[in-house]
């Protein structure tokens, strides 16, 4: 079996199975968790829960004025690699064809030039985020294996994808196999580390908004 056949076949299948099982495990374990009762009555004038949930979700998508000076650059960097990753995922023609297998239809892909630029920006933003983490003593102290592993499995598909589209040193089938294997690694690690924030950010922000909104606080 060639490396590409292994990557497209057993490796990807195993990664998807681990991804699905892990996702169900994490999601259900959190949903069925016992909530602490909050016997306090809502503060007079507190907004309805859904308003608190929505407003906090939106408000926390941008730094508050008091933190803007410190938080603006990391926020922009984070947006750059999150949006870049999404554009690469949904705009690359091979990716579209991959999804079309089970969605049943495809959408227009982006030209390779656009993909190359977005990929380069995404990778630069990821590298900058890593540099910020390791170069600051406090952030470095707070960072653990999960943080670095999560960064690695996020960056590898971008690196191997750019390499596969640009070519060089290795043959395309090898590069494509490496790219698929990096995606398999990403899927396999997703439920067990900080990548899970991709699923949990929305309910956790909403829950925070509801909790503080009940006390009349804007967060």
């Amino acid at each position, binding site marked *: 079996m060639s490396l590409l056949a292994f990557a497209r076949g057993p490796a*990807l299948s195993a990664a*998807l199975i681990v991804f699905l099982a892990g996702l169900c495990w994490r999601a259900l374990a959190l949903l069925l968790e016992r909530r602490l009762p909050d016997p306090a009555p809502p503060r007079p004038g507190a907004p309805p829960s859904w308003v608190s949930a929505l407003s906090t979700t939106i408000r926390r998508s941008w730094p508050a004025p008091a933190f803007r000076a410190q938080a603006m650059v990391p926020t922009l960097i984070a947006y750059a690699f999150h949006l870049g990753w999404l554009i690469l995922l949904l705009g690359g023609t091979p990716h579209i064809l991959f999804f079309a297998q089970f969605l049943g239809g495809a959408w227009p892909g982006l030209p390779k030039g656009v993909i190359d630029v977005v990929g380069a920006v995404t990778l630069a933003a990821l590298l900058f985020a890593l540099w910020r983490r390791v170069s600051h003593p406090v952030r470095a102290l707070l960072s653990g294996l999960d943080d670095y592993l999560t960064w690695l499995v996020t960056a590898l598909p971008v690196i191997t994808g750019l390499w596969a589209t640009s070519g060089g040193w290795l043959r395309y089938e090898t590069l494509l196999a490496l790219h698929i294997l990096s995606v398999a690694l990403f899927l396999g690690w997703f439920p067990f580390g900080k990548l899970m924030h991709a699923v949990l950010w929305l309910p956790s922000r909403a829950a925070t908004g509801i909790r503080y909104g009940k006390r009349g606080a804007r967060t």
Partner: protein
Amino acid sequence: MTTTKYLHVINHALPERTGLCDAILHEVLTALDGLVRDGTPHAIDLRGLPLTEVDREELDRRLGRGEVLVHHTLQAVSGAAAEQARLAAIASQPGEYLVVVDGSVPAKDGGVYSTIAGMTNLQMLEETVQDAFAVIAVGSCAAFGGLPHAFPNPTGAVPISELVTDKPLINVSGCPPIPVVITGVLSHLLAFGQLPELDALRRPKAFFGESIHDRCYRRGFYEQGKFARSFDDEGARLGHCLYHVGCKGPVTYNACATLKWNRGASFPIQSGHGCFSCSEPDFWDQEGGLYAPLSAGRWPGGASVGAAVGVGAALGAGAAALSRARKAAATRALQPPPTAPQPEPGDPAP
């Protein structure tokens, strides 16, 4: 040069001339003109043509025997005389002749699934290559096993590389192989007396060094993100890239996109069909079939997905139940212990 043929079936012989001789002679003349004028090699594969015995005799009369001493389709003699010609060719130039093998060799059950003149192809190959200078496996069947080697491979067909391990071997893969590539390899061997530079699959790098995709004239459309999504849509009519409809050009190494076929007239992609990787090993068994896009992965089956979701849900529910039990135990542990009721003033002393 000795050629050994294994798979091709001789076309049904017609009793009279087919009229192809004149056309073939014209082709040969044009090819020779090109060779003399600018050294351009040409190849004419007579095996694919419906030639009759009368045709062959006519060609033999007008062209002479040439250099092909033994070829099960082309040689004029047959039966015991053909076998004698083969043995004579081997004996006449030991260590100097080339063996050009076409087709994979059934190896199961002693190779009984294909025999010629009472010998298995396996035996004939062993005998023929014994004193050869080099072996050229022509076509994807000889090079990689091809269709007979595809699952479930009932005859145990194997590529020549699995049988010939002690001789220089060149694979000229393709289904069919490009005639000019065959003549190019033969020309190199005859001109330089040594093997050309080969890739990891023992194919000459001069012809198999670059992918179809890298040399494809539709590559520009791939770069622009313009694709044919079916064989009869607007993209197909405009000649856009065929990646969507299963073209395997990016992982196929051959000279189709540069040399093309029929004197450079066209090649499959130019004719509107994607490359299906015929010059690569095991292309018949490739994942997803000939028309699955290259990036299509193999998804786990419904049962596997169901099992994954079930196991995950069970683990999640178990983890939540465990957590609830621990929280309940912790809450109970934090409760103050029940105390005896204090006597109210005025109560009678116990």
